[in-house]
């Protein structure tokens, strides 16, 4: 894949609200045509960062470049960006048609041309025939679509989405996620999404910037972010991560030799130990699905540890077990797919847990 050109670039962006330091030196670039997400807990500055792109928020220092131009010189109503607001911000006194065509008012198009473009935009979001409806009579999902059509009709270079799905119920949200992905591929516009929902970010994004307290903690594609989180904070925020205390015994070529509590000794490759400090006492993390319970009759493997089932949570397709490994005080969570031949275990069952050094991440 060839490297795409940069669409948005943050250079040491700082933002203060009085004494409060909301953005603490943001450096990142967003590529043209990618689906980019800003992910983090509430108050981490992700919405503020999005609003600096839109022009609703001035920055205290640093530079924001949009398509190579310094954004500070361009007022919000002249930027090649359009926004979908968290509250949708549908104009309640206008019809669907008038809402969608609002941005074209300035262009003073002939009536049939305007009608055609509004019709195209409505068709794109699956709302053909809704044009004459009053905007306030729409459901949440339909408002969402009107907001999308309204923002996309100006063919912006960047579409900004501020938690657009947070007000929808789970089914609707999942459906809209898929539609947004398809829409983004179809129009090829750069999408920048703000969300606090890690699953949503993983599902939709090409790349994700995880933010904590006004800083980007890690910027990677979803798979790297999930499999190789750089800090415990990132690992904890995205999905479920088990942590066990570990001791670095020695550095070996291409990695290090580690003694993990409950699991034993193994070698961890350098790319599984992202941060650079070399403390002796440290932590390893691993995802629930990288552990497997071995049932009676299954062959012994090289890496297995005995433990006791402490908690069973049945999800239909999956069962989550909390297993207390021998020699470790707190239980680890593991996830097993429910397939024939794998009965759900009872609490108190002794089990053999198989694991793999490849799935471990060392946090130093």
């Amino acid at each position, binding site marked *: 894949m060839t490297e795409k050109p940069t669409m948005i670039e943050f250079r040491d962006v700082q933002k203060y609200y009085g004494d409060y330091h909301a953005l603490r030196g943001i450096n990142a670039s967003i590529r043209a045509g990618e689906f980019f997400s800003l992910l983090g807990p509430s108050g981490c500055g992700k919405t503020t960062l999005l609003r600096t792109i839109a022009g609703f928020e001035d920055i205290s220092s640093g530079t924001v470049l949009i398509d190579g131009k310094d954004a500070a010189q361009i007022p919000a*109503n002249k930027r090649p960006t*359009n926004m979908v607001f968290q509250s949708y*911000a549908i*104009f*309640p*006194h206008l019809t669907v048609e008038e809402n969608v065509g*609002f941005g074209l008012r300035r262009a003073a198009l002939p009536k049939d041309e305007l009608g055609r473009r509004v019709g195209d935009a409505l068709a794109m979001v699956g709302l053909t025939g809704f044009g004459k409806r009053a*905007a306030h*009579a729409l459901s949440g999902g339909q408002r969402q679509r009107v907001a999308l059509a309204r923002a996309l009709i100006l063919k912006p270079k960047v579409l900004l989405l501020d938690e657009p799905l947070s007000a929808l119920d789970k089914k609707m949200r999942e459906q809209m996620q898929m539609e947004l992905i398809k829409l983004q591929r179809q129009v090829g516009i750069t999408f920048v999404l703000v969300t606090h929902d890690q699953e949503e970010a993983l599902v939709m994004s090409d790349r994700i910037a995880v933010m904590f307290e006004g800083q980007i903690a890690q910027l990677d594609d979803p798979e790297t972010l999930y499999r190789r989180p750089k800090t415990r904070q990132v690992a904890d925020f995205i999905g479920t991560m088990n942590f066990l205390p570990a001791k670095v015994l020695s550095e070996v070529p291409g990695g290090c030799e580690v003694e993990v509590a409950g699991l034993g000794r193994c070698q961890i490759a350098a790319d599984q130990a992202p941060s650079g400090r070399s403390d002796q006492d440290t932590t390893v993390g691993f995802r629930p699905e990288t552990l497997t319970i071995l049932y009676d009759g299954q062959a012994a493997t090289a890496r297995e540890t005995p433990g006791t089932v402490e908690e069973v949570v049945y999800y239909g397709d999956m069962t989550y077990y909390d297993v207390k490994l021998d020699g470790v005080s707190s239980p680890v969570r593991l996830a097993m797919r429910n397939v024939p031949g794998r009965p759900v275990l009872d609490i108190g069952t002794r089990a053999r847990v198989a694991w793999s050094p490849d799935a471990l991440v060392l946090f130093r």
Partner: protein
Amino acid sequence: MRGGWFKVYALAYLLFLYAPIILLPLFAFNDATVIAFPLSGFSTKWFAALADDPPLHLAVKNSLIIAVTTAILSTALAVFAARASTRYRFPGKAGLMGLIMLPLVLPEIIVAVSLLSVLLMIGVKLSIFTVILGHVLVCTPFCIAILSSAFQSLDRSLEEAAYDLGETSFSTFRLIILPLVMPGIISSLLISFTISLDEFIIAFFLAGTETTLPVYIFSQFRFPKAVPVIMALGTILVCLSIVLLSIAEFFRRRGLARSGAKDTGGFL
């Protein structure tokens, strides 16, 4: 009977509140000059007398000029104040808003007396213009109270959305904010119109040789034979206010229906 006494109380309360108003048309259509039962016969002569009363016509004209001007001026001023106070943060805002809202709780007689002495001191001739000044002063706080709630309920991202879609801040105000706060503006116009129309103290002090409707009515009560005419005038005013209130409520409900907002109860 559960809560029996409360029902009696409520009934007595309503009677006390509205019986005098019901008496108004009763005596307005009564034949006799004396306001007393029994009624002596049906007549419309008091209404006819209204039509033939030039000083009254002048008072009504003055009052209408004052009320309309006051309504427009105080609502216009209040739009700015309400918008600024709900949208922006600036130093001294609380103190400033407090000063603007002060006439709401200040006794009107104090406002009237102090205005009168200041106007006389700087040598402004008393006229309906000075009454308008006084009325704008007391009406503006009411208008701000009404309009603040209208501006407060406005989602700020609506403005941002319009701006984001290429509008200027002025056209955003015209296309988005104004239509959405219009029910509030109409309420504000009607309320300040009504307050100004029946305001007595300030008008009495500041009108000079001019006279307004309440001042005229008060002066007529000295003559017993004019009382039935006042009753007829009162009847017309009651009908007029019912019509005005109905119009206000109609606009309020239509505004709500248009924007799909929840009805939180209006005047009626």
